[in-house]
Protein backbone atom coordinates (compact mmCIF):
# COMPACT_ATOMS: atom_id res chain seq x y z
CA UNK A 1 0.00 0.00 0.00
CA UNK A 2 1.41 3.34 -1.00
CA UNK A 3 1.19 6.12 1.52
CA UNK A 4 0.85 9.75 0.51
CA UNK A 5 1.48 13.09 2.08
CA UNK A 6 -2.24 13.64 2.64
CA UNK A 7 -2.59 10.29 4.46
CA UNK A 8 0.08 11.32 6.94
CA UNK A 9 -1.54 14.68 7.62
CA UNK A 10 -4.92 13.05 8.11
CA UNK A 11 -3.55 10.43 10.50
CA UNK A 12 -1.78 13.19 12.42
CA UNK A 13 -4.98 15.21 12.60
CA UNK A 14 -6.99 12.23 13.86
CA UNK A 15 -4.36 11.67 16.56
CA UNK A 16 -4.24 15.40 17.29
CA UNK A 17 -0.51 15.53 16.58
CA UNK A 18 1.10 18.68 15.20
CA UNK A 19 3.09 17.56 12.18
CA UNK A 20 4.76 20.07 9.88
CA UNK A 21 4.90 19.58 6.10
CA UNK A 22 8.61 18.81 6.31
CA UNK A 23 8.06 16.19 9.01
CA UNK A 24 5.19 14.71 7.04
CA UNK A 25 7.52 14.21 4.08
CA UNK A 26 9.88 12.14 6.24
CA UNK A 27 6.98 10.11 7.68
CA UNK A 28 5.76 9.29 4.16
CA UNK A 29 9.06 7.53 3.68
CA UNK A 30 9.24 5.85 7.12
CA UNK A 31 5.64 4.71 7.16
CA UNK A 32 5.82 3.42 3.60
CA UNK A 33 8.74 1.20 4.57
CA UNK A 34 6.83 -0.13 7.59
CA UNK A 35 3.83 -0.85 5.41
CA UNK A 36 5.98 -2.63 2.85
CA UNK A 37 7.18 -4.89 5.60
CA UNK A 38 3.62 -5.55 6.71
CA UNK A 39 2.65 -6.24 3.10
CA UNK A 40 5.09 -9.12 3.06
CA UNK A 41 2.86 -10.83 5.63
CA UNK A 42 0.14 -10.94 3.01
CA UNK A 43 2.27 -13.38 1.06
CA UNK A 44 1.77 -16.01 3.73
CA UNK A 45 -1.02 -18.47 3.10
CA UNK A 46 -3.55 -17.92 5.91
CA UNK A 47 -6.31 -20.02 4.40
CA UNK A 48 -8.40 -21.47 7.26
CA UNK A 49 -6.54 -19.54 9.98
CA UNK A 50 -8.75 -17.41 12.23
CA UNK A 51 -7.63 -13.79 12.75
CA UNK A 52 -5.71 -13.27 15.97
CA UNK A 53 -6.95 -10.59 18.34
CA UNK A 54 -4.15 -10.95 20.88
CA UNK A 55 -0.63 -12.37 20.58
CA UNK A 56 -0.78 -14.15 23.92
CA UNK A 57 -2.51 -17.48 24.08
CA UNK A 58 -4.41 -16.51 27.20
CA UNK A 59 -7.92 -15.40 28.04
CA UNK A 60 -9.26 -12.49 29.97
CA UNK A 61 -9.13 -12.88 33.76
CA UNK A 62 -12.14 -11.38 35.55
CA UNK A 63 -12.24 -9.44 38.79
CA UNK A 64 -14.95 -9.56 41.45
CA UNK A 65 -17.47 -6.72 41.34
CA UNK A 66 -16.19 -4.91 44.42
CA UNK A 67 -15.42 -1.29 45.13
CA UNK A 68 -11.76 -1.25 46.12
CA UNK A 69 -10.79 2.26 45.08
CA UNK A 70 -10.96 5.14 47.53
CA UNK A 71 -11.35 8.81 46.79
CA UNK A 72 -7.93 10.17 45.80
CA UNK A 73 -9.19 13.22 43.99
CA UNK A 74 -6.88 15.65 45.76
CA UNK A 75 -3.77 13.65 44.84
CA UNK A 76 -4.87 13.24 41.21
CA UNK A 77 -5.80 16.89 40.83
CA UNK A 78 -2.39 18.09 42.06
CA UNK A 79 -0.97 17.26 38.61
CA UNK A 80 -3.92 18.66 36.66
CA UNK A 81 -3.25 21.97 34.91
CA UNK A 82 -6.55 23.49 36.08
CA UNK A 83 -9.39 22.47 38.39
CA UNK A 84 -12.43 24.10 40.00
CA UNK A 85 -15.21 22.72 42.23
CA UNK A 86 -13.67 19.26 41.95
CA UNK A 87 -13.84 19.38 38.14
CA UNK A 88 -10.93 19.11 35.72
CA UNK A 89 -10.91 22.19 33.53
CA UNK A 90 -10.14 21.95 29.84
CA UNK A 91 -10.23 24.45 26.98
CA UNK A 92 -13.85 25.19 26.21
CA UNK A 93 -15.61 22.53 24.18
CA UNK A 94 -18.46 23.80 22.07
CA UNK A 95 -21.12 21.21 21.30
Amino acid at each position, binding site marked *: MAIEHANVLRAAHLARLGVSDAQAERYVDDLSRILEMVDRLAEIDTEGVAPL*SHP*LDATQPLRA*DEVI*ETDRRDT*FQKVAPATA*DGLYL*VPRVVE
Partner: protein
Amino acid sequence: MQWEPVIGLEVHVQLSTCSKIFSGASTAFGAEANTQACGIDLALPGTLPVLNENAVAMAVRFGLAINAEIPEYSVFERKNYFYPDLPKGYQTSQMAHPVVGRGEVDITLGDGTIKTVRIHHAHMEEDAGKSLHEDYSGMTGIDLNRAGTPLLEIVSEPDMHSAEEASAYIRAIHAIVTYLGISDGNMAEGSMRCDVNVSLRPKGQEKLGTRAEIKNVNSFRFVERAIAFEIERQSEILEEGGVIVQETRLYNPDLDETRSMRTKEEANDYRYFPCPDLLPLMLDEAYIEHQRSLLPELPSEKRQRFVESLGLSTYDADVLTGSRPLAEYFEAVQKLCGDAKLAANWVQGDLLGRLNRDGLDITQTPVNAEQLGGLLARLQDDTINGKAAKQVFADLWECRGETADEIIETRGLKQVTDTGAIESLCDQVIADNPVQVTQYREASEDKRGKMIGFFVGQVMKASRGTANPPQVNAMLTEKLDALL
Protein backbone atom coordinates in the same frame (compact mmCIF):
# COMPACT_ATOMS: atom_id res chain seq x y z
CA MET B 1 -47.36 8.60 -2.11
CA GLN B 2 -47.69 6.16 0.80
CA TRP B 3 -44.51 6.19 2.86
CA GLU B 4 -43.46 3.41 5.16
CA PRO B 5 -41.29 4.41 8.14
CA VAL B 6 -38.41 2.05 8.98
CA ILE B 7 -37.10 2.36 12.53
CA GLY B 8 -34.18 0.78 14.34
CA LEU B 9 -33.05 1.49 17.89
CA GLU B 10 -29.78 1.39 19.77
CA VAL B 11 -30.53 1.24 23.46
CA HIS B 12 -27.75 1.89 25.98
CA VAL B 13 -28.49 0.22 29.28
CA GLN B 14 -26.40 1.04 32.31
CA LEU B 15 -25.61 -2.23 34.09
CA SER B 16 -26.16 -2.05 37.82
CA THR B 17 -22.78 -3.30 38.98
CA CYS B 18 -21.26 -1.85 42.18
CA SER B 19 -17.93 -1.10 40.53
CA LYS B 20 -16.91 0.00 37.04
CA ILE B 21 -16.39 -2.24 34.06
CA PHE B 22 -12.59 -2.07 34.16
CA SER B 23 -11.80 -0.61 37.61
CA GLY B 24 -12.74 -0.96 41.27
CA ALA B 25 -14.20 2.56 41.53
CA SER B 26 -17.81 2.95 42.64
CA THR B 27 -20.62 3.51 40.13
CA ALA B 28 -23.03 5.06 42.65
CA PHE B 29 -25.10 7.92 41.22
CA GLY B 30 -24.86 11.48 42.51
CA ALA B 31 -21.42 11.54 44.18
CA GLU B 32 -19.36 14.70 44.36
CA ALA B 33 -17.45 15.37 41.12
CA ASN B 34 -14.44 13.12 40.45
CA THR B 35 -14.52 11.39 43.85
CA GLN B 36 -15.32 8.10 42.06
CA ALA B 37 -12.75 8.42 39.28
CA CYS B 38 -9.66 6.30 39.97
CA GLY B 39 -6.36 6.09 38.09
CA ILE B 40 -7.76 3.67 35.50
CA ASP B 41 -10.81 5.86 34.85
CA LEU B 42 -8.51 8.87 34.49
CA ALA B 43 -6.27 6.96 32.06
CA LEU B 44 -3.16 7.58 34.12
CA PRO B 45 -0.07 6.11 32.45
CA GLY B 46 0.76 2.59 33.58
CA THR B 47 -2.74 1.60 34.64
CA LEU B 48 -4.37 -1.48 33.13
CA PRO B 49 -8.03 -2.47 32.89
CA VAL B 50 -9.38 -5.69 34.44
CA LEU B 51 -12.84 -6.81 33.39
CA ASN B 52 -15.69 -6.92 35.95
CA GLU B 53 -17.14 -10.46 36.14
CA ASN B 54 -20.57 -9.18 37.09
CA ALA B 55 -20.83 -6.97 33.99
CA VAL B 56 -20.11 -10.05 31.86
CA ALA B 57 -22.67 -12.16 33.76
CA MET B 58 -25.33 -9.47 33.33
CA ALA B 59 -24.68 -9.14 29.60
CA VAL B 60 -24.87 -12.92 29.19
CA ARG B 61 -28.13 -13.13 31.14
CA PHE B 62 -29.61 -10.47 28.88
CA GLY B 63 -28.52 -12.50 25.86
CA LEU B 64 -30.14 -15.65 27.24
CA ALA B 65 -33.33 -13.73 28.01
CA ILE B 66 -33.70 -12.71 24.35
CA ASN B 67 -32.80 -16.18 23.08
CA ALA B 68 -29.58 -14.91 21.57
CA GLU B 69 -26.51 -16.83 20.57
CA ILE B 70 -23.76 -16.32 23.15
CA PRO B 71 -20.48 -16.75 21.27
CA GLU B 72 -17.82 -18.55 23.27
CA TYR B 73 -15.33 -15.88 22.21
CA SER B 74 -15.69 -12.12 22.35
CA VAL B 75 -13.22 -9.26 21.96
CA PHE B 76 -12.91 -5.72 23.29
CA GLU B 77 -11.88 -3.08 20.78
CA ARG B 78 -10.84 0.53 20.95
CA LYS B 79 -13.11 3.10 19.36
CA ASN B 80 -10.85 6.09 18.88
CA TYR B 81 -12.06 9.68 19.09
CA PHE B 82 -11.08 12.84 20.90
CA TYR B 83 -13.28 14.41 23.49
CA PRO B 84 -12.21 15.70 26.92
CA ASP B 85 -14.67 13.50 28.82
CA LEU B 86 -12.93 10.45 27.31
CA PRO B 87 -9.46 10.69 28.85
CA LYS B 88 -7.92 7.63 27.14
CA GLY B 89 -8.72 9.05 23.70
CA TYR B 90 -10.72 5.90 22.96
CA GLN B 91 -13.77 4.17 24.29
CA THR B 92 -13.30 0.49 25.09
CA SER B 93 -16.16 -1.19 23.25
CA GLN B 94 -16.86 -4.25 21.15
CA MET B 95 -17.45 -4.49 17.43
CA ALA B 96 -16.48 -7.53 15.40
CA HIS B 97 -17.04 -10.02 18.25
CA PRO B 98 -19.73 -8.77 20.64
CA VAL B 99 -20.70 -10.73 23.77
CA VAL B 100 -24.32 -11.22 22.64
CA GLY B 101 -25.22 -12.31 19.11
CA ARG B 102 -28.53 -12.39 17.26
CA GLY B 103 -31.68 -12.63 19.33
CA GLU B 104 -35.28 -11.47 19.39
CA VAL B 105 -37.73 -9.55 21.55
CA ASP B 106 -41.52 -9.83 21.45
CA ILE B 107 -43.45 -6.59 21.71
CA THR B 108 -47.17 -6.20 22.46
CA LEU B 109 -49.04 -3.55 20.48
CA GLY B 110 -52.09 -1.56 21.58
CA ASP B 111 -54.54 -3.96 19.93
CA GLY B 112 -52.98 -6.92 21.74
CA THR B 113 -51.07 -8.31 18.75
CA ILE B 114 -47.57 -9.57 19.39
CA LYS B 115 -44.74 -8.76 17.03
CA THR B 116 -41.15 -9.98 17.05
CA VAL B 117 -38.29 -7.50 16.74
CA ARG B 118 -34.94 -9.03 15.83
CA ILE B 119 -31.87 -7.98 17.80
CA HIS B 120 -28.74 -7.66 15.67
CA HIS B 121 -26.38 -7.96 18.66
CA ALA B 122 -25.61 -6.45 22.08
CA HIS B 123 -22.14 -5.40 23.18
CA MET B 124 -20.43 -4.23 26.35
CA GLU B 125 -18.71 -0.88 26.54
CA GLU B 126 -17.73 1.82 28.99
CA ASP B 127 -19.54 5.10 29.50
CA ALA B 128 -17.74 8.44 29.13
CA GLY B 129 -17.54 11.22 31.72
CA LYS B 130 -19.64 14.36 31.77
CA SER B 131 -18.79 17.77 30.35
CA LEU B 132 -20.17 20.81 32.13
CA HIS B 133 -20.33 23.76 29.83
CA GLU B 134 -21.19 26.34 32.47
CA ASP B 135 -18.74 29.13 32.51
CA TYR B 136 -15.57 28.18 34.33
CA SER B 137 -13.76 31.32 33.19
CA GLY B 138 -14.15 30.30 29.57
CA MET B 139 -13.27 26.66 30.22
CA THR B 140 -15.24 23.40 30.31
CA GLY B 141 -15.48 21.37 33.52
CA ILE B 142 -15.03 17.59 33.38
CA ASP B 143 -16.51 15.13 35.88
CA LEU B 144 -15.21 11.60 35.31
CA ASN B 145 -17.35 9.79 37.92
CA ARG B 146 -19.42 8.24 35.14
CA ALA B 147 -16.35 7.30 33.05
CA GLY B 148 -16.01 3.52 33.00
CA THR B 149 -19.58 2.74 34.07
CA PRO B 150 -20.56 -0.49 32.29
CA LEU B 151 -23.08 -0.19 29.46
CA LEU B 152 -24.80 -2.80 27.37
CA GLU B 153 -25.67 -1.43 23.94
CA ILE B 154 -28.56 -3.34 22.41
CA VAL B 155 -28.84 -2.89 18.65
CA SER B 156 -32.12 -3.83 16.96
CA GLU B 157 -32.70 -4.63 13.32
CA PRO B 158 -34.77 -1.97 11.50
CA ASP B 159 -37.92 -3.99 12.18
CA MET B 160 -40.22 -1.29 13.51
CA HIS B 161 -42.57 0.73 11.34
CA SER B 162 -44.28 3.22 13.66
CA ALA B 163 -43.64 5.32 16.73
CA GLU B 164 -45.98 3.00 18.62
CA GLU B 165 -43.89 -0.06 17.76
CA ALA B 166 -40.68 1.68 18.76
CA SER B 167 -42.22 2.71 22.05
CA ALA B 168 -43.48 -0.84 22.70
CA TYR B 169 -39.99 -2.13 21.91
CA ILE B 170 -38.21 0.14 24.36
CA ARG B 171 -40.79 -0.74 27.02
CA ALA B 172 -40.12 -4.42 26.37
CA ILE B 173 -36.35 -3.90 26.74
CA HIS B 174 -36.99 -1.92 29.92
CA ALA B 175 -39.13 -4.74 31.31
CA ILE B 176 -36.50 -7.39 30.46
CA VAL B 177 -33.57 -5.55 32.05
CA THR B 178 -35.50 -4.65 35.18
CA TYR B 179 -36.86 -8.21 35.56
CA LEU B 180 -33.33 -9.53 35.19
CA GLY B 181 -32.19 -6.95 37.75
CA ILE B 182 -29.26 -6.00 35.51
CA SER B 183 -30.26 -2.31 35.41
CA ASP B 184 -32.46 -0.03 37.46
CA GLY B 185 -33.88 1.22 34.13
CA ASN B 186 -34.08 4.75 35.54
CA MET B 187 -34.33 6.88 32.42
CA ALA B 188 -34.32 10.18 34.30
CA GLU B 189 -30.87 9.36 35.74
CA GLY B 190 -29.64 8.21 32.35
CA SER B 191 -29.63 4.47 33.10
CA MET B 192 -31.34 3.92 29.76
CA ARG B 193 -30.63 6.08 26.73
CA CYS B 194 -31.65 5.54 23.20
CA ASP B 195 -30.45 6.42 19.69
CA VAL B 196 -33.21 6.18 17.09
CA ASN B 197 -32.67 5.60 13.38
CA VAL B 198 -35.57 6.63 11.15
CA SER B 199 -35.97 6.48 7.39
CA LEU B 200 -38.91 6.41 4.99
CA ARG B 201 -39.43 4.40 1.82
CA PRO B 202 -42.32 4.17 -0.62
CA LYS B 203 -44.68 1.47 0.60
CA GLY B 204 -43.85 -1.85 -1.02
CA GLN B 205 -40.25 -0.91 -1.82
CA GLU B 206 -37.54 -3.21 -0.50
CA LYS B 207 -34.60 -0.78 -0.56
CA LEU B 208 -34.20 1.38 2.54
CA GLY B 209 -34.32 5.17 2.34
CA THR B 210 -31.67 7.52 3.77
CA ARG B 211 -31.85 7.61 7.53
CA ALA B 212 -31.49 10.26 10.19
CA GLU B 213 -30.18 9.29 13.62
CA ILE B 214 -31.73 10.94 16.65
CA LYS B 215 -29.27 10.83 19.55
CA ASN B 216 -29.74 10.42 23.26
CA VAL B 217 -33.50 10.25 23.67
CA ASN B 218 -34.16 9.54 27.33
CA SER B 219 -37.84 8.78 27.94
CA PHE B 220 -40.49 6.46 26.51
CA ARG B 221 -42.64 9.40 25.58
CA PHE B 222 -39.81 11.31 23.91
CA VAL B 223 -38.93 8.26 21.79
CA GLU B 224 -42.48 8.21 20.50
CA ARG B 225 -42.68 11.96 19.91
CA ALA B 226 -39.25 12.28 18.34
CA ILE B 227 -40.14 9.54 15.85
CA ALA B 228 -43.53 11.06 15.07
CA PHE B 229 -41.87 14.40 14.38
CA GLU B 230 -39.14 12.83 12.27
CA ILE B 231 -41.64 10.85 10.13
CA GLU B 232 -43.57 14.05 9.53
CA ARG B 233 -40.43 16.03 8.65
CA GLN B 234 -39.05 13.44 6.26
CA SER B 235 -42.36 12.82 4.49
CA GLU B 236 -42.77 16.56 3.89
CA ILE B 237 -39.31 16.74 2.31
CA LEU B 238 -39.93 13.65 0.18
CA GLU B 239 -43.41 14.80 -0.91
CA GLU B 240 -41.87 17.98 -2.25
CA GLY B 241 -39.34 15.96 -4.19
CA GLY B 242 -36.49 16.73 -1.78
CA VAL B 243 -33.70 14.46 -0.54
CA ILE B 244 -33.06 13.32 3.04
CA VAL B 245 -29.57 14.11 4.30
CA GLN B 246 -27.94 11.41 6.40
CA GLU B 247 -27.21 13.21 9.65
CA THR B 248 -27.39 13.15 13.41
CA ARG B 249 -30.25 15.06 15.00
CA LEU B 250 -31.20 15.96 18.55
CA TYR B 251 -34.72 15.86 19.97
CA ASN B 252 -35.75 18.93 21.94
CA PRO B 253 -38.66 17.99 24.26
CA ASP B 254 -39.54 21.64 24.98
CA LEU B 255 -40.10 22.45 21.32
CA ASP B 256 -41.17 18.88 20.46
CA GLU B 257 -38.94 18.80 17.39
CA THR B 258 -35.68 17.33 16.17
CA ARG B 259 -32.88 19.58 15.04
CA SER B 260 -29.74 18.85 13.06
CA MET B 261 -26.59 18.76 15.21
CA ARG B 262 -23.88 20.88 13.67
CA THR B 263 -22.68 18.76 10.74
CA LYS B 264 -19.23 17.52 11.52
CA GLU B 265 -16.50 18.76 9.24
CA GLU B 266 -15.54 15.21 8.47
CA ALA B 267 -17.10 11.80 8.80
CA ASN B 268 -16.20 9.94 11.98
CA ASP B 269 -13.25 7.66 11.61
CA TYR B 270 -13.14 5.58 14.77
CA ARG B 271 -10.30 3.29 13.65
CA TYR B 272 -11.49 0.33 15.71
CA PHE B 273 -8.86 -2.24 16.60
CA PRO B 274 -8.63 -4.99 19.24
CA CYS B 275 -7.58 -3.56 22.60
CA PRO B 276 -4.11 -4.93 23.40
CA ASP B 277 -4.69 -4.32 27.13
CA LEU B 278 -7.56 -6.81 27.25
CA LEU B 279 -7.41 -10.47 26.32
CA PRO B 280 -10.21 -12.23 24.46
CA LEU B 281 -13.12 -13.17 26.70
CA MET B 282 -13.88 -16.89 26.61
CA LEU B 283 -17.20 -18.22 27.92
CA ASP B 284 -17.71 -21.96 28.06
CA GLU B 285 -20.92 -23.95 27.96
CA ALA B 286 -20.90 -24.60 31.72
CA TYR B 287 -20.64 -20.88 32.44
CA ILE B 288 -23.50 -20.05 30.08
CA GLU B 289 -25.70 -22.80 31.52
CA HIS B 290 -24.96 -21.56 35.02
CA GLN B 291 -26.09 -18.05 34.01
CA ARG B 292 -29.21 -19.57 32.44
CA SER B 293 -30.06 -21.25 35.75
CA LEU B 294 -30.04 -17.81 37.40
CA LEU B 295 -32.70 -16.34 35.09
CA PRO B 296 -35.93 -15.29 36.80
CA GLU B 297 -39.34 -15.74 35.19
CA LEU B 298 -39.26 -13.26 32.30
CA PRO B 299 -42.03 -10.81 31.33
CA SER B 300 -43.14 -12.86 28.32
CA GLU B 301 -43.32 -16.06 30.38
CA LYS B 302 -45.18 -14.30 33.17
CA ARG B 303 -47.61 -12.77 30.68
CA GLN B 304 -48.33 -16.18 29.21
CA ARG B 305 -48.87 -17.71 32.66
CA PHE B 306 -51.21 -14.87 33.69
CA VAL B 307 -53.34 -15.57 30.61
CA GLU B 308 -53.21 -19.35 30.67
CA SER B 309 -53.32 -20.20 34.37
CA LEU B 310 -54.97 -17.14 35.86
CA GLY B 311 -57.41 -16.48 33.03
CA LEU B 312 -56.54 -12.82 32.54
CA SER B 313 -57.02 -11.05 29.21
CA THR B 314 -53.87 -10.42 27.17
CA TYR B 315 -54.35 -6.71 27.79
CA ASP B 316 -54.51 -7.12 31.59
CA ALA B 317 -51.57 -9.52 31.55
CA ASP B 318 -49.55 -7.04 29.52
CA VAL B 319 -50.24 -4.10 31.84
CA LEU B 320 -49.58 -6.14 34.98
CA THR B 321 -46.26 -7.53 33.74
CA GLY B 322 -45.06 -4.07 32.66
CA SER B 323 -42.55 -3.99 35.50
CA ARG B 324 -41.33 -6.59 37.94
CA PRO B 325 -42.47 -4.75 41.10
CA LEU B 326 -45.97 -4.33 39.63
CA ALA B 327 -46.18 -8.00 38.64
CA GLU B 328 -45.01 -9.07 42.08
CA TYR B 329 -47.51 -6.76 43.75
CA PHE B 330 -50.35 -8.16 41.67
CA GLU B 331 -49.32 -11.75 42.38
CA ALA B 332 -49.21 -11.12 46.13
CA VAL B 333 -52.70 -9.55 46.04
CA GLN B 334 -54.01 -12.36 43.87
CA LYS B 335 -52.72 -15.03 46.26
CA LEU B 336 -54.26 -13.31 49.30
CA CYS B 337 -57.71 -12.83 47.81
CA GLY B 338 -57.76 -15.93 45.60
CA ASP B 339 -59.41 -14.18 42.65
CA ALA B 340 -57.13 -13.14 39.79
CA LYS B 341 -59.72 -11.12 37.87
CA LEU B 342 -60.75 -9.18 40.98
CA ALA B 343 -57.10 -8.52 41.87
CA ALA B 344 -56.36 -7.43 38.29
CA ASN B 345 -59.28 -5.00 38.26
CA TRP B 346 -58.35 -3.38 41.55
CA VAL B 347 -54.63 -3.16 40.82
CA GLN B 348 -55.20 -1.63 37.37
CA GLY B 349 -58.15 0.54 38.28
CA ASP B 350 -58.07 1.81 41.83
CA LEU B 351 -54.41 1.33 42.61
CA LEU B 352 -52.73 2.44 39.36
CA GLY B 353 -55.33 5.20 38.97
CA ARG B 354 -54.46 6.72 42.33
CA LEU B 355 -50.71 6.20 41.91
CA ASN B 356 -50.94 7.99 38.60
CA ARG B 357 -53.00 10.81 40.10
CA ASP B 358 -50.44 11.31 42.87
CA GLY B 359 -47.45 10.93 40.55
CA LEU B 360 -46.15 7.82 42.37
CA ASP B 361 -44.86 4.54 41.03
CA ILE B 362 -45.67 1.10 42.36
CA THR B 363 -42.66 1.01 44.68
CA GLN B 364 -43.99 4.13 46.45
CA THR B 365 -47.54 2.92 47.01
CA PRO B 366 -49.09 3.81 50.38
CA VAL B 367 -51.26 0.67 50.21
CA ASN B 368 -49.10 -2.43 50.20
CA ALA B 369 -50.03 -5.76 48.62
CA GLU B 370 -50.90 -7.36 51.99
CA GLN B 371 -53.35 -4.54 52.73
CA LEU B 372 -55.03 -4.66 49.33
CA GLY B 373 -55.08 -8.47 49.36
CA GLY B 374 -56.68 -8.41 52.81
CA LEU B 375 -59.30 -5.96 51.61
CA LEU B 376 -60.18 -8.00 48.53
CA ALA B 377 -60.41 -11.17 50.63
CA ARG B 378 -63.20 -9.47 52.64
CA LEU B 379 -64.92 -8.45 49.42
CA GLN B 380 -64.51 -11.97 48.12
CA ASP B 381 -66.04 -13.63 51.21
CA ASP B 382 -68.94 -11.11 51.21
CA THR B 383 -67.96 -9.48 54.50
CA ILE B 384 -68.25 -6.13 52.74
CA ASN B 385 -69.77 -4.96 49.48
CA GLY B 386 -68.11 -3.12 46.60
CA LYS B 387 -69.05 0.32 47.87
CA ALA B 388 -67.62 -0.33 51.31
CA ALA B 389 -64.48 -1.72 49.70
CA LYS B 390 -63.88 1.61 47.94
CA GLN B 391 -64.27 3.34 51.28
CA VAL B 392 -61.79 0.98 52.97
CA PHE B 393 -59.34 1.45 50.11
CA ALA B 394 -59.54 5.24 50.45
CA ASP B 395 -58.89 4.90 54.19
CA LEU B 396 -55.91 2.62 53.65
CA TRP B 397 -54.53 5.11 51.11
CA GLU B 398 -54.80 7.92 53.64
CA CYS B 399 -53.26 5.66 56.31
CA ARG B 400 -56.39 5.81 58.46
CA GLY B 401 -55.91 2.20 59.48
CA GLU B 402 -53.41 -0.63 59.38
CA THR B 403 -55.56 -3.36 57.86
CA ALA B 404 -58.83 -3.64 55.99
CA ASP B 405 -60.29 -5.68 58.88
CA GLU B 406 -59.52 -2.93 61.35
CA ILE B 407 -61.19 -0.27 59.17
CA ILE B 408 -64.23 -2.48 58.49
CA GLU B 409 -64.61 -2.98 62.23
CA THR B 410 -64.21 0.63 63.36
CA ARG B 411 -66.39 2.03 60.58
CA GLY B 412 -69.08 -0.63 60.91
CA LEU B 413 -68.92 -1.52 57.22
CA LYS B 414 -69.78 -5.19 57.60
CA GLN B 415 -72.31 -6.13 54.99
CA VAL B 416 -75.80 -7.07 56.14
CA THR B 417 -76.66 -10.42 54.63
CA ASP B 418 -79.31 -11.30 57.18
CA THR B 419 -82.43 -11.93 55.05
CA GLY B 420 -84.81 -10.74 57.73
CA ALA B 421 -83.08 -7.38 58.12
CA ILE B 422 -82.92 -6.82 54.36
CA GLU B 423 -86.54 -7.87 53.91
CA SER B 424 -87.80 -5.34 56.42
CA LEU B 425 -85.79 -2.59 54.70
CA CYS B 426 -87.29 -3.58 51.34
CA ASP B 427 -90.82 -3.60 52.70
CA GLN B 428 -90.22 -0.18 54.24
CA VAL B 429 -88.91 1.31 50.97
CA ILE B 430 -91.83 -0.12 48.97
CA ALA B 431 -94.32 1.28 51.49
CA ASP B 432 -92.62 4.70 51.50
CA ASN B 433 -92.65 5.14 47.73
CA PRO B 434 -96.14 4.45 46.38
CA VAL B 435 -95.71 6.71 43.32
CA GLN B 436 -92.63 4.83 42.10
CA VAL B 437 -94.33 1.50 42.82
CA THR B 438 -97.26 2.49 40.60
CA GLN B 439 -94.90 3.63 37.84
CA TYR B 440 -93.08 0.31 38.10
CA ARG B 441 -96.28 -1.67 37.80
CA GLU B 442 -97.40 0.30 34.76
CA ALA B 443 -94.05 0.16 32.97
CA SER B 444 -93.31 -2.34 30.23
CA GLU B 445 -91.24 -5.32 31.23
CA ASP B 446 -88.04 -4.14 29.54
CA LYS B 447 -88.14 -0.81 31.43
CA ARG B 448 -88.62 -2.39 34.86
CA GLY B 449 -85.07 -3.68 34.99
CA LYS B 450 -83.82 -0.12 35.03
CA MET B 451 -86.51 1.17 37.39
CA ILE B 452 -85.55 -1.35 40.05
CA GLY B 453 -82.34 0.63 40.48
CA PHE B 454 -84.24 3.37 42.30
CA PHE B 455 -85.50 0.96 44.95
CA VAL B 456 -82.12 -0.72 45.35
CA GLY B 457 -80.58 2.72 45.88
CA GLN B 458 -83.13 3.54 48.59
CA VAL B 459 -82.51 0.27 50.41
CA MET B 460 -78.74 0.73 50.22
CA LYS B 461 -79.15 4.22 51.61
CA ALA B 462 -81.36 2.98 54.41
CA SER B 463 -78.75 0.35 55.28
CA ARG B 464 -76.02 3.01 55.14
CA GLY B 465 -74.38 1.08 52.34
CA THR B 466 -73.98 -2.17 54.22
CA ALA B 467 -76.64 -4.28 52.51
CA ASN B 468 -75.58 -6.81 49.91
CA PRO B 469 -76.69 -5.28 46.57
CA PRO B 470 -77.38 -8.50 44.60
CA GLN B 471 -79.42 -9.81 47.52
CA VAL B 472 -81.38 -6.55 47.72
CA ASN B 473 -81.94 -6.59 44.00
CA ALA B 474 -83.30 -10.13 44.02
CA MET B 475 -85.57 -9.51 46.95
CA LEU B 476 -87.01 -6.27 45.55
CA THR B 477 -87.64 -7.85 42.15
CA GLU B 478 -89.50 -10.65 43.81
CA LYS B 479 -91.60 -8.35 45.98
CA LEU B 480 -92.42 -5.81 43.25
CA ASP B 481 -93.24 -8.46 40.69
CA ALA B 482 -95.65 -9.98 43.20
CA LEU B 483 -97.57 -6.66 43.06
CA LEU B 484 -98.09 -6.77 39.28
